[in-house]
């Protein structure tokens, strides 16, 4: 069973569980959909990935 890494989403605080990720990989928070960058594996740290705000322009 691959090791399950757990961390909190910095944006919404959701508990995020992942297996087989590498440093620098971009993953998505299942609750708020924000993109997160895997800063380190041990300890498992996630940070908001740089992301430009989509504008609907309505």
């Amino acid at each position, binding site marked *: 069973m691959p090791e399950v890494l757990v961390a909190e989403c910095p*944006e*919404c*605080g*959701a508990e995020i569980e992942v297996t087989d990720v590498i440093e620098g990989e971009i993953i998505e928070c299942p*609750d*708020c*959909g*924000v993109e997160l960058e895997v800063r380190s594996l041990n300890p498992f740290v996630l940070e908001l990935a740089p*992301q430009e*705000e*989509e504008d609907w322009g309505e």
Partner: protein
Amino acid sequence: MSTDRLSVSIVGASGYTGGELLRLLLGHPNIEIKQVTSERNAGRYVHFVHPNLRGHTRLKFTSASELQPCDLLFLCLPHGQAQTRIDDFAALAPRIIDLSADFRLRDPTLYERWYGRPHAAPEWLDRFVYGLPELHRDEIRSASYVSGVGCNATATTLALWPLFQADLVDRDRDVIIEVKVGSSEGGNSPSEASHHPERSGVVRSFAPTGHRHTAEVIQALSRTGQVPPIHLSATAVELVRGVLATGHAFLKDRGLTERDLWKAYRAAYRDEPFVRIVKERQGIYRYPEPKIVAGSNHADVGFELDPETGRVVALCAIDNLMKGAAGTAVQCMNLMCGLPETRGLEFTGLHPV
């Protein structure tokens, strides 16, 4: 009647709510539909009134005068009727779920103030439990008599509930809620205002003040302490099914952040089978959207914080015929009868739609 299946009847099954209830019960494996009544349509096949049910049932409407005892009775009568006939109905079934407004409010004086006349059976009021499982699950499990919920009240209550439960709201400042609603809320009897050329494409302020569901919202939120002034307005929009409630409340502590709000909403709804928190940074559907939940029992809830002013915008989208009426009623039936709460309510809703 096979022993393991519950015999269930619907009184007043020719309306939109009764028809939605019939659709759900037809798809429910533990239910056997005994009778469905309609005085106007007695003797007719149900699918001539509910066309989507063609090919799914050979049931015919009967008159309420022919009602026989059953395990559970749903009442889908126009407001005012259930309270005058409750004793007759109670003689027919040990469990009753009334989808009208007759038994929603616990306080008879509140009922008289909002509905303009004294309640016909006040002694029954405290024998009914308010049928919103997200707030009253345990009471409903052991209840014999459960009231339905108001659709606009449900959307409003579910939007604001986490903020009040976590006591984050300044209870001295007014809370304003605007509900945008679909045309099916008016039921299936036509009027000049619902005539297609007049109703199509409107953004119509049809109840800017004095909306009856306010009483239910106050009753629900008062479980968390003093309730600030609640002001409801309704606007009809180009939609058949659906309600979007947009609530405006003010935080007590200006230092709170979005993460604190996430925590409050997750604490309230993490284990709720039908409530989904929808607040996304990107994509098309970033906040709750009524058409996405149409036909499902979902209540999609979201929020946004204005750090400048401490104003929280609380959002909830539901299908007024499902989470706002028949879906929640079936959810209550499942709880009252010891069945899995989501049984018969698994439909995800459609997209695109």
